[in-house]
Structures are given as C-alpha cells and as structure tokens.
C-alpha cells in the first residue's frame, strides 16, 4: 500500500523516494525494464563466464592470426651444423657403447653367459628336451583338455617307476636320460 506522506522537507522527500525505488527494484525486478537478475524458477546452467556477443566478432579472425603467429614463433635452426660440431656430439663418450663387465663362463657347458641371465646354450638344450617330452604327452593325450589331474613322471630307457610314483601319469621317452635331468 502506498504511503502518503504529506509535504515533508525536500531532502527527506528525495531520500524517501530513493529508498522506495530500491524497495521497488527488490520486490518487482522486471517492472523497471533494465538488466536485472532473473526471477522465478531458473535452471542453473553453466554458461560462459563472458557475454557471448563480443566474442563472435573476433572468432573468424581467431584461427588465421594464431596459425600465422605460430609459424613466426616456431623453432628453426639458424645455421647448418658443421661436421666438426656433429662429430663432437656423435663421438661424445656418453654416446659410445659401454664395455660390459658382467660376462662370465658357464660352468656347465663352457659358453659365455651374463651373470644375471641363464646360459643360452644350456637353455636351448633344456628347451629341445622339453619339446620332445611335450610331443610324447600330446601323443598320449590325443587332444586338448585331456590333461589328467595327477602328477607326471618322465621315464627314459630302462627305467622302472618307483613305489611313490604309483598313481602318477608316466611318460616314456625312448632315449638315454640326459645327465642334467636328475631322477629323484
């Protein structure tokens, strides 16, 4: 309801008018017509921090200047690297291959081996024997998924299974037992 104050002093009247305008703006924001905060149930949408209008003008010119500018700022060699400079870089001791000090002799076969790696010759030997044993297993099983749920024992020429090998699967290999394959 409008309050009517009868003829106050002019200063008081001006102050009162300004207070009333502020109240109006707070209560009826859309009535004044200017830019104001949105009223009513508004979705909280994340929009651009800046207003969209001024950006669209600069957008067409955005790609072309940055492309040209980046060419100007790209790193490029100023002078040809001379062969002397190239040699200094290529023959620097940190680029040369370092001598390996971890090479030893394998006590089994006498070939060279690295200290922390298995001997290549002995490994190949074992691999070949394992392949033959696997072929025998394949012949016995006949197909995939036929592995029995018991242990396997490999027997060579002239060997008999022992008492503790009773329930185990026996694979026969038709050759002499290699010296490195110990029978427990």
């Amino acid at each position, binding site marked *: 309801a409008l309050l009517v104050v009868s003829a106050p002093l002019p200063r008081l009247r001006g102050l009162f008018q300004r207070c009333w305008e502020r109240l109006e703006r707070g209560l009826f924001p859309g009535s004044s017509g200017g830019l104001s905060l949105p009223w009513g149930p508004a979705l909280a949408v994340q929009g651009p921090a800046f207003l969209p209008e001024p950006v669209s003008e600069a957008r067409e010119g955005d790609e072309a200047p940055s492309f040209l500018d980046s060419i100007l700022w790209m790193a490029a060699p100023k002078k040809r690297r001379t062969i002397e400079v190239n040699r200094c870089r290529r023959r620097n001791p940190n680029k*040369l291959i370092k001598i390996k000090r971890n090479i030893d002799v394998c006590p089994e076969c006498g070939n*060279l081996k690295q200290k922390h790696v298995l001997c290549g010759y002995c490994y190949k030997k074992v691999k070949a024997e394992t392949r033959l044993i696997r072929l025998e297993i394949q012949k016995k099983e006949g197909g995939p998924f036929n592995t029995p749920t018991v242990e396997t024992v490999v027997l060579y020429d002239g060997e008999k299974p022992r008492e503790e090998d009773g329930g185990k699967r026996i694979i026969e290999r038709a050759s002499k037992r290699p010296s490195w394959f110990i029978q427990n």
Partner: protein
Amino acid sequence: LCYFPAGSAWACGLLGWARPERWLALGSLFPLSCIHTSTSLQKLGNWEKKNRIVYPPQLPGEPRRPAEIYHCRREIKYSKDKMWYLAKLIKGMSIDQALAQLEFSDKKGAKVIKEVLLEAQDMAVRNHNVEFKSNLHIAESLTGRGRYVKRIRYHGKGMFGIMKIVRCHYFVKLVEGPPPPPEPPRTGFDQAKEYVQQLRSRTLVNTL
C-alpha cells in the same frame, strides 16, 4: 740384394695383357667360347688385396714379424654410422674379449661383425700360419659406405619423400700377439711439457 716385393702380383701385372689361350684358339678346331669361366665375380677391393702381399724371408737376427690378417664384408644392410659405434667398441681388444662383447650387444651389426671375426680367425689359423687362435688382437676396425639406393616413401595427402636404402662395408685387421696396452690419458702436465718444448724449438727466421 733385389727381390720381388709382391712376386705373383708383379708377374700377373706384366703378362696380364697377353693371353696365350686366346691365340691358340685362332688356329684350332675348337672355337673360342666366350663363356666367362673364371671364378671371380666382383672386382677385388683394396682391402682384400692386402692379404696378398708377400714379405721376403726374414734374416736370422730380426725380431719376428707378427702375422696380419685382413678381412672384410661388403654391402651389409646397416648404417655406417651405427656400425661405427661397434667398430669403435672392439678397436684394440683381444679377439676373445671382442667376441664376448659382441655376443651380448643388442645391435643388429653385432651379429654381422661377430661372423666376420670368426671367419677371419679361421682364415688366420688355416692360411696365415697363426699358431693360437686366441693370440690375435684387433689392430684396425673400420666401416665404409656401401652402395645407396633411392626409393620413394609415401606420405599422406599425396606427399612423398625420397628415402635412401643404406648399406655399409666392414673392415677388420687382426694381428698376432697380445693387445697393446692402452695409452695413458693426456694430463695437463704432458700438455704443458709439450707447449714448453714447442716454444724451445722455435728458431729465428731470415737471420744469420
């Protein structure tokens, strides 16, 4: 006392132009067949010819000349710059140490150089009168540029580049005997001594 420094090569050079088998064919019943019957397919390079030099017999008082064996492999499919690192690694080593280092190197050229060294060692024992195959050391090991071939490398958007298919040669010289001790590194004192020596050996020019 004159002698033929390279006896067989000298004789070959002198009478190389005269080929008696060609003259005999003129009057004979059997025509000269133009089939190339010799075994040499490529032209022998300089390094291979170094094995052919024959020294005169040594006098009783002279120190024994160590045997030198030159061997090489041509047109290896590898880069000469990359191969150079391996050649630099084994320079001055004994042959056993070099073979050990090459066996455990991960580079492609290491396998090739190992084969070359084993071939050279075998040649030394069979043809060059070397007694112990371990008593050899590598005096020189070099790489050279082989024949390059240019090919097109296709890029996107219709662009292309020209790439070089790179090949190299590898040369090695084995000498009988233990490897020479490595040179001590040049100290500042040595450099100063050399500088002072240089200053002392200056002479006055254009004077009495």
